[in-house]
């Protein structure tokens, strides 16, 4: 199983970035950004995994069982919820751009300066 999960992470990042670069719609770009963010969760959990380990909850298994790393799970957990709120903030900026300029095409929006 070597580095296969990390290859999948690299693939998700590149695919998401490709979507952002070739998109003609701000909301499309935001959804591709969500895909790129999700690659970090997979990477975090992939780094902390222990083969044959159980989930780090000891209410029903004895204390000495081999378990996966809890620190990266804590990081990924807060990450998921907080980035949903940040995505909502990005969407409100997109709505603001639409109301101001009437278009959601990033190529056309780039021409408005100031």
């Amino acid at each position, binding site marked *: 199983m070597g580095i296969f999960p990390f290859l999948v992470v690299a693939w998700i990042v590149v695919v998401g970035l490709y979507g952002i670069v070739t998109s003609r719609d701000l909301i499309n770009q935001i959804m591709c950004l969500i895909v790129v963010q999700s690659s970090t969760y997979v990477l975090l959990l992939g780094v902390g995994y222990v083969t044959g380990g159980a989930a780090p909850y000891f209410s029903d298994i004895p204390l000495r069982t081999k378990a996966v790393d809890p*620190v990266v799970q804590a990081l990924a957990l807060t990450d998921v919820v907080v980035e949903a709120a940040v995505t909502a903030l990005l969407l409100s900026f997109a709505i603001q751009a639409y109301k101001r300029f009437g278009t959601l095409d990033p190529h056309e929006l780039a021409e408005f300066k100031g």
Partner: protein
Amino acid sequence: MTPGQRRWFFLIAAAGLVACYLWAFAGLPGFGDYPGPYGQEVLRQAVRQTHATGVVSAVNFEYRGFDTVGEEFILFAAAAGMSVVLRRLRQERESEPAGEAANQAGGAATPATSSAMRVPALLMVGPTALIGWWLASHAQTDPSGGFQGGVILASAFILIYLSGEFLAFRRLSPVALLDAVEAVGAAGFAAIGLAALVMNLPYLDNYLPLGQFPGAVSSSGTIALISFFVGLEVAAAFVLIVGEFLSQTLLRRRSA
């Protein structure tokens, strides 16, 4: 730069990025061979030190509590920023001439919500709120915690909107109350940490009684309390976010 040129430029850059990634991953110990001493040490000490059997929540609210305060304030700032942007938009919108609103009134009428949608949604509101509350208050025993419980609690409110009762949603969650609850949640977390400072302990130290045996609801000191406040804050933030978006679509629906 034409789109074709942009695509080629991106492909070349992506090739470089993938090369760097592969070089980095070649230095990792491989999937499943986690050697890091910090995680294993936390696993050994956590249950004994905090009487919490949910080690992930113990890490989140005790060992790494400082990082969680930061994350919670990111959430708070995102919800606040959204309110600022969209409320200003709404004030500009309401100052438009009445003629334009009459134009939109002639637009497509929104269909009434079907009963197949209303009944299950209304039935699920109670259990969802209960599950969210249960998750937010059981951080130290099971896979649960303030963040997940808060989002599920918020989705109970969203179910009220989905069942077609937008005005009930608005009445049950007035904006002033949401702002206050969110502030209480964020400030409560910081205040618990500051209270530790007042007692001459390090910031966010666990100073409440740890409980008799690990895994009970009343055990693990500040972890349960912090999780409760975080749940409040996350729920209020998400209901606020959805409410801000909905207030603008209401203008169109009311005139239809």
